[in-house]
Each structure stands twice: as C-alpha cells, then as structure tokens.
C-alpha cells in the first residue's frame, strides 16, 4: 500500500503527447511495486491521455489535484512488481 512517501517526481508540463506518457511509463518501469510517483502535468491532451494509459498499464492513481492555472498533480502507486 502507498504510504505518505513520494519516491519519484516527474514533471512533464513542458512535454507534448505521446512523450508525456512515454516518460511516465519509463519512470514507472524503473520503480518497485507499491512505490509512489508524483507527476506534474498540464490539462487538455496530457490529462486526457496519461492517467488513462497509466491505469491501463496496471498502476493505481490515488490522488488527483488541480493546482489551478491548467496544471495538475497525480500521485501514482506503481502496480508492477519488478524483482
């Protein structure tokens, strides 16, 4: 289960799709199951695509925060175990 700890932070606010998701996916692949990734992203296309793809890959988004000014913060619990 996710604790209050954030293990990694990824800022994709300057990126466009599909680089936004590629970066997120690569980051999650380097993490262990249960670890938490914080992602900073913008509204519109990145917000439409990244959370949906993250969910489809088997990770768990447990917090979505609207930071205002078209910026969002996601907290994702890595769902794939890498031994």
């Amino acid at each position, binding site marked *: 289960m996710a604790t209050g700890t954030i293990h990694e932070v990824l800022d994709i606010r300057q990126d466009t799709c599909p680089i936004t998701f590629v970066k997120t996916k690569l980051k999650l692949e380097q993490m262990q199951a249960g670890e938490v990734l914080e992602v900073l992203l913008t*509204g519109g296309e990145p*917000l*439409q695509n990244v*959370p*949906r793809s993250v*969910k*489809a890959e088997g990770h*768990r*988004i*447990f*917090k*979505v925060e*609207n930071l205002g000014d078209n910026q*969002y913060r996601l907290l994702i619990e890595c769902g794939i175990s890498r031994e």
Partner: protein
Amino acid sequence: MDTDTLAETLPAGLTPEDLKAGGIIPQRQNDKVVIRCMAPGGRITAARLHKIAEVAEKYGSGEVHLSVRMSPEILYVSLQDYPLVKEELAKVGQEIASCGKRVRVPTACGGCEYNPNGLVDTQGLALEFNRRYFGQDHYHKFKTAFSGCPIDCTRARESDLGFQGQVEPELVAEACSGCELCAEICPERALTMVAGLPVRDVERCLLCGDCLKICPNDALVAGRTGVAVYVGGKHGRHPHVAYPVAELVPEGEIFPVAEAVMAWYRENGRPGERIGLTVDRVGIDRLRRVLKPLIGPHLLQQHHIRRQRWRSVFWAGAADAFPHYGEV
C-alpha cells in the same frame, strides 16, 4: 474502356452489370479491368495479401489500389484472365468483392478487440454482416459501416446503414474519491461535480466511455452498452448525412435491425434511389414504425433529437440545426 464498349466485347449473355456483381470494374484502358478483392472490415491475412501481390505481379501491373472502402483492388488485369485470377485467389480463400446495386462489403475500425477506444466488436460484426448479407440486390448500392466509438472513423453517419459503439457510464458512488478527473477530461463537458460526485448531463453525453477508462477507482463503470443506428447516409454528388435512428441498441439486435431496414428499403424504395432519399421521400416515421417492435425503447424521439448531443449530428430536414452561410 467505357461500359458500352465493354459490353460489346463480353461473351454472349454477360452484361456489364454481371461484371460488377463479380467485382470486376472496367478500366479506361482497352480490355483491362480492376479486380476488387473482399476484405470485410479492411482486415486480411498475410497469406491472402501475399497471394494478392503475387496475382498483381503475374496478371496485373504489379500494383494494388486500396479502395476508399478498404478493398484491395488489383489493377490492369486482362478480362480473359479473370477466371484464372479468381481461381488463384480462391486457393487462399480470397474472395472477390462486388460493386453495383447490392449490399457491399462492410467497413469497420479495429473495434474493441485491439483499439483502445473501441466499445463493440466491430471486426466480428463486419465479418458476420458480410457472411449474412453480402451481394444481396437492392435498388442502389447499400453500404454498411461499423464504428467502435463516437469518434466514428468509418463514418457510420455517412453510410446507408451505420452502427457506432456506445457505452452509458454508471456511477458507483461509494467507490468515487471525488478526484474530478472524469469531469476535467470529458471532451463534451458532460460531467459536473455536485456534492463531490460526478453528475452526467444526458443533453451532452456522447456515450464515448472516456470517463470509465480514466476513472482511477472504477467508480464509473459500464452500464448499458450497444450501438447507435444511423440510416440513409451517403457520399457522392449529393452527400446526405444519415438519420440517427436509435441508441444503445444491444449487439444482439443489430442483425434483426439490419434485416428490417433492408426489407423496408425493398418495400419502399425505387430503382436507382439510395435509402437516404427513400427516407426523405417516404418519411423517417414510416421506418421508425417498422423498427418499433424490435427496438422500441432504443428509438430516438423528438426530444432526444433536440438534445445538444444529437443536434451536433445534423440530419436532412433539420435546417435549423445547420448553420446559415452569410455573405463573405
């Protein structure tokens, strides 16, 4: 070669219409024809593709044209080679498509099998539709399209008969964390947060399912799933956007609906008239009455048609929904 010239060169008893029924299209070049290969939903095995390539090199110009409705067409085949071409293609189960006044090979997107947006099995439906109805004669061509979602890549709204996947989101309130992601990403702005929960505006919702796919907690889940049914669309010199007829029709009702629509067309159409023009002339209500016993609860009524969701898909006769073109 034009059709008349072609007719003179045909063996006795064979008309240009026979050729079209067999998927043979006259070319400008003397004695050359295009052979249209069948590929329901645009899907084809590698073995058949290899064979088509082989035949194109052996009997044609070595080129294939992909028709606008997904059929591979072998170019520059000599008419007298047609029986050999047909036999060669049959070895791998490659059939010839048709042209002319009959049910054409249906088109389809990837659908739910592998396309992330797909909501229904458009590929399976296209195959089955083709198996049941391909080549049946009508007053004019009859084109069918299956789109997996409201993005409508195969243009169900511009087909004689079009089906488009839909899913109705259902809220499991106790699972919702109130994160607002669904409301933020809904392309139609159909979800608003009320007391921490998403509320859906049926006036705007296109039933695309994007909210279900993004919901981190599976608090929005698939409710009724089915297809929107469109009748009477076409391209051509006088394009005609289809009449939206029904929504959320269960997959099991698709073929009964298709059969009822085609039977209605046979009964009410006129030679040379596409079904959209038959509906214009006879009236959409005549068709809706025929469909009522089959899919009554799914039929669109006037109050549905007035919704923003359907006004955005304009239909013939609804001039008020179509923008006025001013002086420029």
